[in-house]
């Protein structure tokens, strides 16, 4: 296994083919925030919200088109201070 294959960790596809570029852009933003802020206890603003919104709109459309049975999720996107309970 080469380092190249590991370096493409952010090169996963979206379930909606048209969403892949947006997904990868969001993933890079998230992974950076996760490693450099979240895990170090920095609760300051999340820089990925706008990227996530765009990406989500695309994914929601793909899920409907493919009739993937997602239930119980409100597509509230990216947020803080949500209640602990989840679907």
């Amino acid at each position, binding site marked *: *296994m080469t380092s190249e294959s*590991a370096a493409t960790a952010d090169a*996963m596809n979206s*379930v909606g083919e048209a969403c892949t570029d947006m997904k990868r852009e969001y993933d890079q933003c998230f992974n950076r925030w996760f490693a450099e802020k979240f895990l170090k206890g920095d609760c300051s603003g999340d820089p990925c919200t706008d990227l996530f919104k765009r990406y989500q709109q695309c994914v929601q459309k793909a899920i409907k088109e493919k009739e*993937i049975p*997602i239930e119980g999720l409100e597509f509230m996107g990216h947020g*803080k201070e949500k209640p602990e309970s989840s679907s």
Partner: protein
Amino acid sequence: MRVWSSEHVFGHPWDTVIKAAMRKYPNPMNPSVVGVDVLERSVDSRGRLHSHRLLSTEWGLPGLVRAILGTSRTLTYIREHSIVDPVGKKMELCSTNITLTNWVSVSERLVYTPHPEDPGRTVLTQEAVITVKGISLGSYLESLMANTISSNAKKMGKEILQIYLPNITKPLTQQ
């Protein structure tokens, strides 16, 4: 119903393993995962990160199994909920299939915690519950799937993170 579980220790601290675990797809050891999307992500009032993800997988079930199940579908969808507690140093992932549910239910749970005796190491415990519904060869198919999960988990839990871990310590701008 079949229950399978295992435990593995990584020779890296929890933060490092978590960063690699969040990015473990794609990987050449488990090419069956062909799509991953984040459906929802938020931080709760306790500072824990919740993520809901949708994974699409090509199961790679043998033709005989697919014939028994009566389906030619090979693409399956899985829903995963993960919780990362950066203060308590615990990452928990729960996943279950949301298609093929008339025939089979596969639920997996993974928990990453620091090794109780050595903060430079991390413990991963995995368990899976597999239930094949309503057909007489259910027991056989459950074994087959448990073996697949076990084999994938052995690869995933060990070699995969070893592939990513050497890179994970590089600055992100170089990845």
